[in-house]
């Protein structure tokens, strides 16, 4: 049951007001990009985008479109603030994380604007919690400038095939090497760890391949520690699209279906690793 709108104390309208019947729809997506403590929230009439970055090399975005919310109102063109993502997730899951069928936490989120804290009203089973989380100046975000015209290779895979592979990646390897090619090995994930090298090959005609558009053979290496958090997004998703551009930048887009069948997206962008050392094949 959505909470009724709380009247603002001073009568000023909220620049952002949203209601959500099931806070899990939000918290699970936020978890999928939670690899640093802080995130930048960017809200427009279309929805909210939460961005997390690390090392100036990797950026993750979670998109929660307006349609997911029961109520969603943004008064200005756009509303941006930086917030502690760990705290936000903890508050959203304050009633616990176990998902019992039938019980869900209702959420009302309000933000008065620059300088004000983000207010969360959470209710489950008649118990209400009010959280106020301080907001900060938004950071400058990286722009990977990744648009579809620049894409060289693109693959869409069913997540099921990659989940285990990502979970079992040899973490003693510093890099994850991704090879995409119109010829063999088509799509290959490689690691070079203490035990030796490991290669995971996906053929283009595999049942897992939903789309295979590779024009050029490209091999790029990415720091595995940066990509490992994407495993969370992969675990939630049903499909993933893997794209690289001419400079070797990687775009991973995950299509996530929530409990109510609604679709959301999470994407990861990653720079290729500059240290190119002799590949051990």
């Amino acid at each position: 049951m959505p909470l009724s709108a709380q009247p603002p104390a001073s009568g000023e309208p909220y620049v952002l007001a949203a209601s959500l019947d099931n806070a899990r729809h939000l918290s699970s997506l936020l978890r999928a990009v939670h690899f640093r403590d802080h995130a930048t929230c960017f809200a427009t009439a279309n929805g909210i985008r939460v961005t997390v970055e690390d090392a100036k090399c990797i950026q993750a975005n979670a998109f929660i479109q307006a349609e997911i919310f029961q109520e969603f109102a943004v008064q200005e063109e756009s509303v941006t603030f930086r917030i502690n993502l760990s705290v936000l997730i903890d508050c959203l899951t304050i009633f616990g994380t176990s998902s019992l069928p039938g019980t869900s936490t209702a959420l009302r989120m309000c933000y008065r604007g620059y300088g004000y804290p983000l207010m969360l009203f959470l209710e489950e089973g008649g118990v209400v919690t009010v959280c106020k989380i301080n907001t900060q100046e938004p950071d400058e975000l990286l722009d990977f400038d990744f648009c579809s015209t620049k894409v060289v290779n693109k693959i869409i895979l069913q997540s099921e095939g990659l989940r285990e592979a990502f979970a079992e990646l040899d973490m003693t390897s510093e890099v994850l090497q991704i090879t995409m090619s119109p010829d063999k090995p088509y799509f290959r994930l490689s690691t070079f760890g203490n035990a030796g090298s490991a290669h995971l090959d996906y053929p283009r005609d595999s049942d897992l391949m939903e789309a295979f558009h590779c024009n050029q053979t490209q091999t790029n290496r990415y720091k595995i520690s940066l990509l490992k958090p994407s495993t969370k997004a992969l675990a939630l998703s049903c499909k993933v699209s893997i794209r690289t551009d001419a400079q070797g930048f990687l775009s991973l887009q995950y299509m996530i279906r929530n409990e109510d069948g609604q679709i959301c997206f999470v994407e990861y962008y990653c720079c290729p690793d500059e240290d190119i050392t002799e590949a051990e094949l």
Partner: protein
Amino acid sequence: LSRIGDELYLEPTESGLSLRTVNSSRSAFASFLFAPLFFQLYEAGGPQPGRELLRCKVVMKSFLGVFRSLPSLEKTVWKCLILLKPRASRLVVQLHCKYGVTKTHNLAFQECEQLQAVFDTQRCASSLCAPARVLAEAVVHFPQTLAEVTLGAGPGGKISLRNYVEDEAGEPGRAGTMVTELWLAEDEFQTVAVTPGSRITFCLKEFRVSPARVPSSSLGSPLSPSQPPRCPQGLLTFAEASNLPLTIHYDMPGRPVVFTLDDAVLEVHLVLATLSDPESGLQPPTANGAAHLPTPSDDFADDLESYMIAMETSAYEEGSGVPPSPTFPLHTPCPAESDPEEEEEEEEEEEEGAVPGTPPHKKVLDGHGRCLGVGGQAQPPPDPHLSPQFRSLFFGSVLTPGTPGPAPTQEVLAEDSDGEY
């Protein structure tokens, strides 16, 4: 295998692929031999016949890393290919999975010598065969922290399992130590061919199913000086899962106990060192009467005699015509035997290549300072803290092809000059 050792030795042979390991104190050895039939394709030595078969060892963890998730393996992998590429120094394990996905692991390996434990099940005086379930259920009764257990053949054909408690010299037993003793009737076993009164003590850790970490043994056993003890999901779990009967071959205390599982396509051996202990009962009465026979009421003197007779006449259930093992120094009651015994020890050492790092294989008769039967001959004084020691198994470059067999040196050892057993 990973519960025992850190390195996995792979040896392709004509009779199959052998995977072996040994623990760091060389007191436990295990091998799994997969017959060629187990595989869809088995090519040892490459397409050219006559090429030398390559042995290699890989770090156990790396190898296990390939097969990390067992349940998903069963569901997704339909073929596994193992290739040894000597020129690239890589062991290639390739898993062909669902959806056409191929996982290729290139593992670094080291060439190595053959790892072979010296033992011969034919020579073991006693053997027992039971479904693994029987033993697993028996072992469950012993506390998780138990290190050593004594298996014995008791009166009426019953088999006993008792946890081993070291007796402090002169004390009746440590106060407060719980002793568990379990008797199994003969009919629980499929075959029983034991020497009455025989018993051996071995380390339970490598054998049983137990996730607990055993604290460093206070028995001073050289098995666990500072290494973290291996705790098993050992052979017993495997045996239960594969539904194969487990056969136990043993002989005298001090000689290794061999557990085997046999199948059409798989042969498994686990060889554990046993405690060579004057307390074990098979101690011949000695001139100075210092023999310390244990209190259980089995009539050891009689049993001993019958055992000796059995040995002499080679009335083994298993092999026949096998000469009594002369390596067993306890058979030499005369004080004068100390020298030949020493020679035996030394010969064993030299011939079989004492492996560095093995616990000192002092004479059996040390430990309690009772040099039985050797009448106080000059011997290196035993370390009083290393009382009853596990006799380590001797590994060396024994070039027996693939099959476990006695080292030829076993027969060369000096026998009791009086020929009296």
